[in-house]
């Protein structure tokens, strides 16, 4: 194997990587064969028919989705569509889910997901929801963990690059979103060169403990830096939130150089309990704004979209002591709070140490007004006054840290491509293991919470080069599972991932596996287009609009012969899967439709909009293999020329006839 340093011979890193070889390459040049131990296979083997111990939720990066894996096997269980259209499920294509992807910019079919975050109770993941951010057009989504479905999305106003998001407070009162790109607030047409005067950052606190009711509680207006990541305090530091910032140089061009000049940037420590008080005392300004809140109505399963028109913004100048800056070397990326809530660990991308701040020291420094200076009403504490320790010579390019709950921290190093284990309190490095290659985030189940399940660390790598069979110019990105139960970390498994996993979260399967929904109760559906028996099938015209209601059940649609539609009509197929049976899904697709199929969960109604463009007879069929007679599950719709006299007609199935006669075909 080549030295890792050659693998990332990219411009800006060459110099750093050359230094890296001095003290990091000795660990990364180990022959691969010694990296796994003999029992690795048995540790990740989950026998056919057996379950994994953990659900792991990996962000899909530029796929815009979440992928769900079982650990330790690394088996892909599901892709949950969130911010990108997903034709496999009709997500963002059917009329029912389209509103979820609406924004103040209109319909956005794609985004870039970065950080999965599980809801918490008392600082411990509780299995209610998963949150994830959209980085490009800043939004936060809620995923229900009894359905593995996106149920809510809120857009973040006055923000660009929703990167430091959606980290949660210990009881999921808030999830946060800090803007990576500072922008004019409110966004107006100004010269880019006026960055220092006009550009601001915002830290948004979004209420999250009421499903379907996410709201921007308040935004804190910050100096125009780049805000990168965040984590809530816990235990003694509960009530505080920590955000990293870089580009304190306030560069607006060529940031790789211009934003890497300062020796130290900042962690912003936000006292959000105090912010709440200032908000309650009316110390905010209400800015007119426009942002969307989208949610799935539980009864009808129809997504709805509402526009909100203002947001409360708090300037730290108006709320003394709400934000302090902790100087932190150098262009810090991750900021991670240990399970005790005492230590705040930063990952300075270009730093040669891992700096750790002490919450107690920070409190004392605040009380003693031990300030270096004040920026826009934000006191800057002295580094020596808040720093608890530095991990010396840890590696190159520290990014993120997770904890095992046993007093150890695990930090990912992008440039030297390794995970380094070190001890909290003594700051000594105790072990290191190479990753293949260039790890970004790492994840221990519950590893950012009060109670880690410290059995594995999952490394998520950006580069795979020679790790898998090559697939052209674009290669898979990957995750690697490392056993951390012993003194020495042991590499157990590689598996390729969907898109680029940034962060991930995992929890024991037992927390959610038994509460999974098996079907939607037809009798409880409030969808106006729902029908629950074949007899209710219909075709109706209203001007140029034709509405068709049909049912799907093994192995037919009813009605399945439709006539009287004309070129130029807009046809809505409202299809209800009237099965009340677990894992019996049906699909629906029409020849030539300019949209995806519908996928219908049992008891669910979905609507496809279809604009026929030519006369003829067009088949439709079930796309989800439902039964032995799945291939027979089909029908036809006839399209006549505009102005035709062909009457509107939907056939009546034998069962529908029996139902209408009140005979033995009752029930479904």
């Amino acid at each position, binding site marked *: 194997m080549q030295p890792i340093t050659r693998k990332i011979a990219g411009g800006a890193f060459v110099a750093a990587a050359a230094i890296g070889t001095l003290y990091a390459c000795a660990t990364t040049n180990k022959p691969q064969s010694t990296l796994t131990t003999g029992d690795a296979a048995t540790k990740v083997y989950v026998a056919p028919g057996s379950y994994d111990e953990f659900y792991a939720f990996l962000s899909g990066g530029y796929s815009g989705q979440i992928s769900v894996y079982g650990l330790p096997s690394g088996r892909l269980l599901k892709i949950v569509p969130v911010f990108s259209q997903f034709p496999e499920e009709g997500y963002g294509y059917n009329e029912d889910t389209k509103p979820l992807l609406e924004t103040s910019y209109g319909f956005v079919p794609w985004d870039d997901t970065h950080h999965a975050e599980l809801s918490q109770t008392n600082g411990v993941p509780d299995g209610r929801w998963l949150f994830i951010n959209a980085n490009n057009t800043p939004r936060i989504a809620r995923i229900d963990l009894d359905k593995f479905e996106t149920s809510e999305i809120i857009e973040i106003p006055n923000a660009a690059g929703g990167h430091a998001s959606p980290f949660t407070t210990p009881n999921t009162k808030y999830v946060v979103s800090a803007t990576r790109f500072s922008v004019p607030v409110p966004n107006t047409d100004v010269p880019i060169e006026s960055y220092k005067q006009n550009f601001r950052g915002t830290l948004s606190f979004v209420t999250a403990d009421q499903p379907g009711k996410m709201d921007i509680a308040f935004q804190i207006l910050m100096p125009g830096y780049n805000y990168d990541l965040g984590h809530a305090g816990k235990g003694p530091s509960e009530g505080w939130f920590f955000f990293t910032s870089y580009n304190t140089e306030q560069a607006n061009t060529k940031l790789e150089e211009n934003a890497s000049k300062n020796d130290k940037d900042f962690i912003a420590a936000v006292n959000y309990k105090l912010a709440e008080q200032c908000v309650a005392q009316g110390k905010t300004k209400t800015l007119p704004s426009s942002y969307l809140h989208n949610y799935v109505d539980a009864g009808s399963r129809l997504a709805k979209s509402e526009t909100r028109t203002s947001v409360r913004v708090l300037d730290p100048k108006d709320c003394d002591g709400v934000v302090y800056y902790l100087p932190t070397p150098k262009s810090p990326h991750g900021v991670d709070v240990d399970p005790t809530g005492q230590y705040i660990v930063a990952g300075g991308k270009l730093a040669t140490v891992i700096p750790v701040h002490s919450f107690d020291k920070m409190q004392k420094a605040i009380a003693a007004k031990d300030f270096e200076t004040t920026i826009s009403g934000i006191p800057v504490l002295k580094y020596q006054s808040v720093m608890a320790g530095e991990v010396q010579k840890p590696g190159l390019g520290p990014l993120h840290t997770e904890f095992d709950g046993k007093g150890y921290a695990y930090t990912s190093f992008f440039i030297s491509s390794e995970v380094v284990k070190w001890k909290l309190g003594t700051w000594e490095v105790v072990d290191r293991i190479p990753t293949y290659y260039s790890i970004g985030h790492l994840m221990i189940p519950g590893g950012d919470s009060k109670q880690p399940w410290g059995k594995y660390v999952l490394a998520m790598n950006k580069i795979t080069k020679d790790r898998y069979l090559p697939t052209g110019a674009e290669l898979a990105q990957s995750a690697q599972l490392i056993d951390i139960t012993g003194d020495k970390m042991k590499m157990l498994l590689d598996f390729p991932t969907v898109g680029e996993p940034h962060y991930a979260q995992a929890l024991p399967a037992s927390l959610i596996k038994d509460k999974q929904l098996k*079907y939607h109760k037809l009798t409880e559906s409030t969808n106006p287009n729902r029908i629950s028996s074949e007899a209710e099938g219909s075709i109706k015209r209203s001007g140029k609009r034709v509405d068709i209601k049909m049912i799907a059940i093994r192995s037919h649609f009813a009605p399945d012969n439709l006539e009287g539609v004309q070129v130029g009509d807009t046809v809505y197929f409202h299809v209800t899967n009237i*099965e009340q049976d677990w894992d019996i899904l049906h699909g629906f697709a029409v020849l030539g439709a300019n949209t995806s199929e519908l996928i219908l969960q049992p008891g669910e109604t979905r609507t496809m909009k279809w604009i026929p463009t030519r006369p003829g007879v067009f088949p439709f069929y079930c796309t989800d293999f439902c039964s032995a*007679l799945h291939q027979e599950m089909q029908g036809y719709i006839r399209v006549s020329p505009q102005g035709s006299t062909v009457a509107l007609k939907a056939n009546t199935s034998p069962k529908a006839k029996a139902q209408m006669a009140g005979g033995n075909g009752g029930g*479904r």
Partner: protein
Amino acid sequence: MTRPSRVLVALSSVLLLGLLVTPLWSIHLVAPQYPEGIGMRIHANTVEGVEEHDIDKINNLNHYIGMKRIEPAAIPELKYMPWIVVALGAAGIATGLAGRRRLLIGWLTVFGALGVLGLYDFWRWMHDYGHNLDLEHAIIVVPGMSYQPPLIGSKQLLNFTATSWPALGGWLAAVAFVLGIAALLLSAPKSRMTREVPA
């Protein structure tokens, strides 16, 4: 009748009345498509799914083989069976109160006969469902195949393994009958026994 035997008859009758609130029989179906199983329970007054929609699922699956829909409302026995149970239970209690051995013999005879008749009737319904198929509309037709689950035990019906077994009420009835027999044995008149010994 001795005091213990009268108590046993009363107990037997109470157990019998338990048939009004417990399922008599259960039919459980397992297939590769249903590893978790679907099933129904036959009560004195109805047939219900083990899970909420199991009868619908079974009916929907049965449309492939042309089997009639299982509609509890269309089975007349389910209307009068509870009254038979009530009558039999009441008669048992009356027998215990009266303490007449002849009444007990009569009651047990009726009990036994009704039990056999009930099982025969249940078998006849299953035979009808399993054999009397609408072959004209059946989608899957296997020549010579019928779909009658066994009264007790398991049988492979296409992809389904059907297992039929007494449920709690069925066992209650059996125990009630055994208690009745025990009461009969215990009530054997002493005088007669003493008479028989010297004979």
